[in-house]
C-alpha cells in the first residue's frame, strides 16, 4: 500500500472518486463520445464488504456488503484506466475507466474542465442542499424564565 503523498496520486484518487460517485446518466451526458479502447478487464459486478468500527473508533467489524462494478481499459494510445463504481451499472464502470485513462493523456485538461468540473460542482451542490435542509431542523434552545421576578 503506497498511501502516497505524491500530488499525482492524490489528484488521480480525486478524479477516480469523482467519476465513481457520478450519477451514471450524468457522466454519460457529459462524456457521450468515447475514444477507441480495448477492455483489459470487462465490467464485472461484485461486492465490497463495508466495514465499521466498534463504537465508531475501535476495532473493525463487517457491517454488510455493497454492490460494485469494476472495469479496466486501455486506450489505443496506451494509457490504462481503472474504475470501481458503486452499483451494478456496467456502462458507468466502463466510461469511468475510459475517463481515468483519458486523464493520463493530453486530453486531461479538457476532461477536467468539461466532465470533472461539472460533476464536482453538482456533487457539492447536492451536498449543500441536504446540509441546508438539515440546518433548518437544528434546534435552537432558549431558556424560559420562571418565577415571579423574571
Amino acid at each position: 500500500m503506497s498511501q502516497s503523498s505524491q500530488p499525482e496520486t492524490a489528484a488521480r484518487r480525486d478524479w477516480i472518486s469523482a467519476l465513481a460517485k457520478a450519477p451514471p446518466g450524468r457522466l454519460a451526458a457529459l462524456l457521450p463520445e468515447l475514444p477507441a479502447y480495448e477492455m483489459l478487464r470487462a465490467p464485472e459486478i461484485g461486492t465490497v464488504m463495508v466495514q465499521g468500527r466498534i463504537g465508531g473508533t475501535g476495532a473493525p467489524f463487517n457491517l454488510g456488503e455493497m454492490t460494485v462494478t469494476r472495469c479496466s481499459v486501455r486506450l489505443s494510445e496506451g494509457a490504462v484506466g481503472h474504475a470501481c463504481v458503486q452499483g451494478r451499472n456496467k456502462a458507468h464502470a466502463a466510461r469511468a475507466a475510459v475517463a481515468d485513462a483519458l486523464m493520463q493523456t493530453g486530453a486531461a485538461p479538457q476532461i477536467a474542465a468539461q466532465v470533472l468540473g461539472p460533476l464536482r460542482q453538482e456533487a457539492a451542490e447536492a451536498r449543500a442542499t441536504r446540509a441546508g435542509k438539515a440546518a433548518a431542523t437544528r434546534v435552537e434552545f432558549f431558556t424560559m424564565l420562571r418565577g415571579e421576578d423574571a
Partner: protein
Amino acid sequence: MYVAVKGGERAIDAAHAWLAEERRGDPSVPELTLAQIREQMALAVNRVMAEGSLYDPDLAALAIKQARGDLIEAVFLIRAYRTTLPRFGASRPVDTAAMAVDRRVSATFKDLPGGQVLGPTFDYTHRLLDFALAAEGTPPPAPMAPAPDEPVPHVTGLLDRDGLIERQPAEDTPAPDLTRQPLELPASRALRLQALARADEGFTLSLAYSTQRGYGRTHAFVGELRIGRVAVEVELPELGFAVEIGEVELTECDTVNQFKGSKTEPPQFTRGYGLVMGQSERKAISMSLVDRALRWQELGEDFTGAPAQDEEFVLSHCDNIQSTGFLEHIKLPHYVDFQAELELVRRMRREAVQMQEAAE
C-alpha cells in the same frame, strides 16, 4: 419407505402463474415501478438492504416488488442473489465522525458542538392519518438554512475528554466474517455486531425492550443517534492506493450505560453500539442495547439469565432468514416422517389397551 414425490409440477406451475397475477393486482391500477418503490418506500428498502446485508437500493426495490411487499421474503431474495456475486475485497472502516449528517440528536447533552439536528423524522408528528396523502400532490419544498461549516464530533468523545466513559481505542484486528466462517461461540464483539447489523429488526427490538423492562437491565441513554452519508473507501490493488468509490447512508447509535469501576479504575460510563445500513433508528438503538447487554462478561457483570445476555440465544435466533427457513420448512411434505409417527402412536395405543385388558 419410499413415497413418490412426482405429480406436483402442474400444480406448482399453476400456483406460480397465479402468484404472478396476484402480485400484479388489479390490472386497471397502474403498475409500481422500481424507482417508485426506491424513492417512496425508502424505509422498507433500507430494511431489506440492512437485513439482506447488501447495500443496493435498486435491488432491494426489485426484491420488495417480487415479494409483494413481504420484507422477509425480500431479504431472502437479496441474500440468495448476494451469494452469486464475487467479493472483490473489504472497504476501509467507514469514518462515521465524518458523516454528512441528516439527523443527529443526543438525549444526554442539550448543547453540543454541531447541535441537535432533527432531520426528516417521524418524532413529534401526531401519528394521525394524513388523508391529504390519499390524493396526489407535491409537498412544498423543505425550508433551508445556512449550514454552519463545523465538524459534528461524536458525543462520546466529549465524555472521553474527562475520562468519564469507556474508550474504544483504534486498532486493526482483522474483522471475523460470519458469511465466511460458521458461527463459533463465544463470539467476539466484532462478530456479534455483524450478526446484529443484519438481524431481524423485530427480534432485536423485542430483546432491547426486554432489557429496558429488567431482563438484563443496562440503564441506557442514547448518547448519540446520527443518520447520514459516509464515504466508502476501497483499496484498489491495480492502483495501489485507496479511493472513495461511493457513499452509503447509515444510522449509528451510541448508548451511554451504567458505570463500571474497580479497585484500580474509578467508575466510568460503559457503552453499547449500533450501526445499520440505511435510515433505521429503531434498529440502531435496539442493536446498541443488545450489544451492551451481551457484554456482561467482559464488563464483569452478573449473568441474570436474561435472554438478551445469552449470546447463544441471541446469535442463533436473530437471523430472520435462518429462522423462517427452518420454521417454514415444516409446511413442506413430511409424509414419511409423519407416517412413522403415526405407526408409533398406533402401536403404543395398542400396547396400552392390551396392558389395561391384562390388568383387568
